[in-house]
């Protein structure tokens, strides 16, 4: 075989690899997640309806508005801040697909940093998609990265200087939608996204904002509600009620540090009238010491290496052979939000937000999540949207 033929073979193989990888990446980037909004939807807007800063960008997310028509408060739910934390957007979508507002208004964004959900984290061998079994078939979501894709926001600065505090942050955090609050209209993609969301929060006069997350068990801020000082009494009461009445693993509470900038629990409360909350739940997939990184780990939350770390008291959350399954993580987020609203309603009855149709912790633990997501093919087209 001459060197020419050998090179041709090499080119063919490398080209084949590039083609396969390219097709897989393309499929991931172009897959659209169907959302069947609840029949009580008032309006579906775009983030760009609140600010031009995200117009024509990949982060011009859907904004689902459910208005009861009865005067009360307004809650904004944010999912998908970090798309490598899948329970965040699934929890938001439980609301989008099931909520029936009885008083006040609830606004949901399932995917606030869409760009970050269009590719997985480089070098981590993440699965591209994850699935949930439903009574009508399997529902599929994109698994993603923590930060926006470099295809949409590039290059990063040497040092990211947070606006407006001037605090220095790591370079890639300029693509991190939980380091770019309150954002600015002429910044980079994540900054513009947060600015538009901030405009939404201000224009809709939101009273409560919840940002859903998940965290590795090796991280100290775990299974907790992080809260702006405006919401301390509500979060304290909610965490005690949840620990006492619903959860097997307690949920704590943390004060939002005043000097740590760019985070939703700090900046939303500082730059609007809303009280900002952030909820964390344990996701073993994010632990550095995890074993095989696949969809099974993502959804079951079972990992014997993480368990081993727990035996050596290296973790901030308990884990056993039952793991941290996705439906349990979702159940915790959904119930945390509902309990925060319950306490909020007690303390500020004139700004009450009363929601019906949302499954309880027990419902989600007993039935799983599947039955709370509707079949987009069997639903009326005017109720089907794509994130």
């Amino acid at each position: 075989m001459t060197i020419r033929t050998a090179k041709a073979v090499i080119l063919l193989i490398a080209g084949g690899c590039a083609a396969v990888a390219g097709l897989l990446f393309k499929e991931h980037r172009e897959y659209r997640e169907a959302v069947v909004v609840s029949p009580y939807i008032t309006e579906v807007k775009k983030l760009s309806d609140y600010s031009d800063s995200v117009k024509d960008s990949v982060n011009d997310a859907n904004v689902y508005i459910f208005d009861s028509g009865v005067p009360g408060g307004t809650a904004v739910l944010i999912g998908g801040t970090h798309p490598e934390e899948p329970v965040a957007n699934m929890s938001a979508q439980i609301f989008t697909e099931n909520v029936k507002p009885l008083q006040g208004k609830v606004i949901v964004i399932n995917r606030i940093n869409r760009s970050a959900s269009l590719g997985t984290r480089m070098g981590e061998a993440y699965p591209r998609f994850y699935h949930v079994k439903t009574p009508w078939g399997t529902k599929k979501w994109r698994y993603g990265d923590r930060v926006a894709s470099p295809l949409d926001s590039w290059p990063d600065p040497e040092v990211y200087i947070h606006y407006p505090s001037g605090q220095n942050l790591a370079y890639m955090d300029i693509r991190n939608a939980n380091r770019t609050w309150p954002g600015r209209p002429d910044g980079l993609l994540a900054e513009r996204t947060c600015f538009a969301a901030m405009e939404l929060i201000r224009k809709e006069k939101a009273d409560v904002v919840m940002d859903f997350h998940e965290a590795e068990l090796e991280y100290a801020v775990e299974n907790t509600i992080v809260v702006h000082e405006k919401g301390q009494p509500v979060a304290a009461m909610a965490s005690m009620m949840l620990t006492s009445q619903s959860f097997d693993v307690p949920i704590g509470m943390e004060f939002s540090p005043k000097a740590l900038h760019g985070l939703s629990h700090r900046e939303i409360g500082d730059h609007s009238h809303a009280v900002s909350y952030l909820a964390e739940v344990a996701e073993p997939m994010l632990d550095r010491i995890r074993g095989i990184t696949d969809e099974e780990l993502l959804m079951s939350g079972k990992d014997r290496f993480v368990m081993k770390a727990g035996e050596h008291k290296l973790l901030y959350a308990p884990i056993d052979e039952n793991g941290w399954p996705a439906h349990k993580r979702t159940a915790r987020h959904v119930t945390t939000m509902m309990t925060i609203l319950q306490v909020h309603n007690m303390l500020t009855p004139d700004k009450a937000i009363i929601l019906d149709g949302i499954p309880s912790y027990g419902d989600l633990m007993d039935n799983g999540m599947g039955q709370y997501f509707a079949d987009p093919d069997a639903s009326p087209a005017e109720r089907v949207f794509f994130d």
Partner: protein
Amino acid sequence: MKKNATALFCLCLAALLFAGMASAEAPKLEGPYLVTTCGQSPGAVMLRMSALQAGVQAEHDNALSAPALAGKKAKTLIVTAGTSMKGMGAAGTNVNKEIERCTALMEAARSAGMTVVGAHIEGMARRTDSSDEASIEAVMGAADIILVVEDSDSDGFFTRYAGEHGKPIVKVKDALAIGNALK
């Protein structure tokens, strides 16, 4: 072997009796309450909210200092132990300064005739690092009475501590149940 078993049984019985005595001895907690935290964790806020929903008067100040005690009419001071890095960072303090403030405060409260309670009510999540340990050690050492939730004592640490130091211990199911225990 048999002798050993008998001895062990006697020891258990004694321990049980002692525990029973200790809790029987526990003076009834009496309000109004003054609550602070040694480590800027949200325990003090939680305690106040729990008291509030049980209809018990409690005032909370995360930066309460000994001189500030003068104007207060409280009968009992509760200091929650366990630290939060976020909280201490936010308040511009650290665990050593917190311990200094709280030990002085607890001393002053006792001189003023108040009952001093050391509490740990946020469970195992606030028993993870050396700061937590330091805060617990300082607060429990200076307390007349120990108040804990079941999760905080899931390994028996506080029960053992109370026994060793001859301090009465009040143990409640969870943070939400504290309010009723304060009635």
